[in-house]
């Protein structure tokens, strides 16, 4: 079965995110006063051929920890969108 899997990679808490800060400031300048913080990350979409959803999830997790995310600075979440 083919699963469409999203891997969301974001910076760990406490890691400086100058891009997020700059975007947050820009939004404030545009009048988004209610935006009190912004951070950046990325999403990878993987098409995975697997027997079960659990298996697809596992493969995506392995891909994330081995390559897509740098565990020193980033964490990841896996989401199945079918």
């Amino acid at each position, binding site marked *: 079965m083919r699963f469409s899997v999203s891997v969301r990679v974001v910076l760990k808490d406490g*890691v*400086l995110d*100058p*891009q997020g800060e700059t975007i947050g400031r820009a939004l404030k300048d545009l009048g988004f006063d209610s935006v009190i913080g912004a951070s950046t990350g990325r999403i990878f979409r993987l098409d995975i051929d697997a027997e079960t959803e659990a298996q697809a999830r596992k493969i995506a997790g392995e891909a994330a920890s081995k*390559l*897509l995310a740098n565990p*020193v*600075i980033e964490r990841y979440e896996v989401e199945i969108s079918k």
Partner: protein
Amino acid sequence: MKVGVVVFPGSNCDHDAYSAFKLVKGATVSYLWHGSQDLEGAEIVVLPGGFSYGDYLRAGAIARFSPIMKKVVEFARSGGIVLGICNGFQILTESGLLPGALMRNGGLRFICKQVILRVENCGTLLTADIEPDRLLRMPVAHGEGGYFVDDATLINLEKRGQVLFRYADAEGVVTANANPNGSVNNIAGIMNIEGNVFGMMPHPERSCESILGSNDGLLLVKSLCSQVAGGIIAR
């Protein structure tokens, strides 16, 4: 004394590194292709600066899985001397040979300029020829050079003398203004605990001839070579 300079697709300081090590008497330098699995007997392996694999994903993230890196990791783990400069430093952290990570510069800009480095440990293979209090001048050229490491590891790095260079002002004082990229504790270069793997963002290989504005980098290149040639490394 055999030096191997690894060439990745996108390396652009490989020729500079080659020329820099060529300046050392008795050194033979060769290029090592990223697709090869043979270090050709190199006693020092240099991972040069550049944009290996276009810096796709993260700087150094793809290069780390190239065939030659398997051999470089084995070589380093068995005590072999590895020097990573700029992108080479990024590859070394990505491959786990050095702690921490290199992040997008604090100011978000690509920075290309001369910096002053304070040498924090003159008792290493890379810095042995440097007199204490000698400041080094050499260029940085990077977009992702902000050194980051978790607090616990940082404390250990500092305690064990693994921090080799810090960005400093012209008087050698480590200030926030002298920090070009937001690196923690102004760190510009480190080594591993064992003292055989070195990583730095500034470019010693681009400052080995006075016509280029500084030859301070040659001190590091020569130091490394003389320490290895002097048989200080028993392998």
